[in-house]
């Protein structure tokens, strides 16, 4: 029982990191960034390439090396997010939503198969595996690496919450979410803020990608597809556009999956999660913490 809860929370913290980028972008410009899951994949591959380049250095102190790589990868995927925003989304801002969604699908495709060309179609094995002694906490088997990864994601999430809630940049983001035109009139550089939002969101996804690579050990170019869907589910459960709600939603989804896997079997895990998404949209489309959004005409 407590093992299931622990597993759920652990997986949920991964989902939360990815879902945050989704929810930030959605909250600000009402765009579902399909390519977001693929930035997670890009993060995993960037980390893989960097660890490969560092070679022997890695083996001596794997955890430190992984943290350095984590930061570098976050910068790289952040820049990747910037490029996508600049090339694919900005020219279409103000166009019908359908065109934006289609470009987002295109961006996702280009990232996936671009990576396939660069890194080959076969799964890669991460050079660093985090191994650690297991500790027994309230009957659940908890390993050191799980604790470290959860601490890292918790730290990132707290930093993000502070950034959005307390800084001037964060205030500008929240203002754009309310009314981009008025922001423009108030002298906020809307384009720059939106670009920064993409940077932060993509960096979070990249961090999750490296952590997933270090934890699960195997990466492939389609790994972002399912996690992107799951992150969306998490964001919807919590209330898309709402940052604390999304974190909550991700943990809820992690727990649901953990228990669902236990009850109905692992092969039905994804069906269970998406079925829950559809159910949730029927019963409470605004999510647990979301407010009712009236569609602006």
């Amino acid at each position, binding site marked *: 029982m407590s093992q299931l809860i622990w597993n759920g929370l652990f997986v949920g913290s991964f989902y939360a990191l990815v879902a945050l980028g989704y929810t930030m972008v959605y909250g600000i410009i009402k765009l579902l960034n399909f390519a977001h899951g693929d930035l997670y994949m890009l993060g995993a591959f960037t980390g893989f390439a960097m660890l490969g380049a560092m070679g022997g250095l890695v083996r001596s102190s794997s955890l430190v090396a992984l943290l350095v790589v984590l930061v570098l990868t976050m910068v790289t995927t952040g820049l990747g997010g910037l490029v996508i925003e600049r090339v694919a989304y900005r020219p279409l801002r103000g166009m019908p939503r359908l065109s934006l969604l289609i470009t987002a699908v295109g961006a996702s495709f280009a990232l996936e198969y671009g990576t396939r060309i660069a890194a080959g179609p076969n799964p890669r094995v991460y050079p660093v595996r985090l191994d650690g002694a297991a500790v027994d906490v309230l009957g659940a088997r908890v390993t050191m690496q799980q604790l470290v990864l959860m601490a890292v994601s918790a730290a990132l999430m707290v930093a993000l919450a502070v950034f959005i809630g307390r800084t001037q940049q964060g205030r500008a983001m929240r203002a754009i979410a309310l009314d981009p035109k008025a922001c423009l009139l108030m002298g906020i550089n809307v384009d720059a803020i939106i670009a920064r939002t993409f940077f932060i969101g993509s960096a979070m996804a990249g961090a999750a990608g490296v952590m997933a690579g270090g934890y699960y050990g195997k990466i492939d170019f389609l790994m972002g597809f399912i996690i992107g*869907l799951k992150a969306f589910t998490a964001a919807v459960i919590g209330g898309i556009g709402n940052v604390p709600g999304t974190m909550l939603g991700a943990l809820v989804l992690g727990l649901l999956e953990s228990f669902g896997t236990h009850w109905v079997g692992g092969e039905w895990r994804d069906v269970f999660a*998406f079925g829950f998404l559809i159910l949730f949209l029927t019963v409470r489309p605004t999510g647990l913490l979301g407010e009712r959004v009236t569609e602006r005409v």
Partner: protein
Amino acid sequence: MTAVPDRAKRPGPTIVTRLMENRHLGWAALAVGLVAPFVIATPYAMNIMTSAVIFVMLAVGLNIVVGYCGLLDLGFAAFFAVGAYTSGLLATRLSWPLLATVPAVIIATALAGVIIGGPTLRLRSDYLAIVTLGFGEIVRIIANNLEVTGGPSGIYGIPGLFGAEAADPVVFYYAALVIVAVAVLLAARLGRSRLGRAWRFVREDEDAAEAMGVHTYRIKMAAYIAGAIWGGLAGVLFAAQLSAISPASFTFLQSALVLMAVVLGGMGSTPGVVIGAVVISLLPEILRDLADYRFFVFGVLLIVMMIVRPQGLWPHRSRETARTAARSGES
């Protein structure tokens, strides 16, 4: 009011436009399809041509949802799968003839459309996109996990369209061609009907449509169900062609390719979508060496199309707008 519009000021349609607007174009395309086996009839070519024809049916079905009504469906392969599996299961397990499964397929796909559209069509359109994506995965995973669907290896030994005796690929090609031609014609007529106009209205401005008394939820549901049925019937043809189906045929890639065909050809334009589907299904055969780059190019192409030419290669031209333009020129 009475002044004759000055024709010299507005340049008339170019030859290309006039050719593209020609009424007999559909017949010409059908004729090309009918003649094609006389030009090349190797089993390989027949196989590819039949696949292309089935793909046209899929694209026309998705066009109802995306092109006419403006709802992005990213899990269209799910309906394709529902159709293929329903007919395959009934034909192999209960040994129904394949044609007899068609009503069951229509019911099953319409039901799937209601299940997935019911909760999501009330919400914002982007929710629909992701939910359909999830639904596509659900259908594939269910087919993969259940025993009755044959698990990962799928169903095999599905009889041909008219039983085992008429299994000649050329016969099947012609049958598929005629069925798909009727389906394309039906979809085009549907797009021009009262319902079709309501769809376009919803696509252009949902709130205005609602204010004008269009029941947008019901209209969107109709588009969704129609698209689902077209997809399901394409699934029947697919099952009949290959006589074996497996979950691997119904991945997100398939849905994305159909979407690509619709976007490339021109959303809402029947000739455009048909051409787009033919191009998308034949291109890989021509560009075999570039297989690795294919999907990358598709992705980039989607972005470029949306930025440079969102209306597609062969856009839909509405007669109403031409008439309105003429009228506003008069006043």
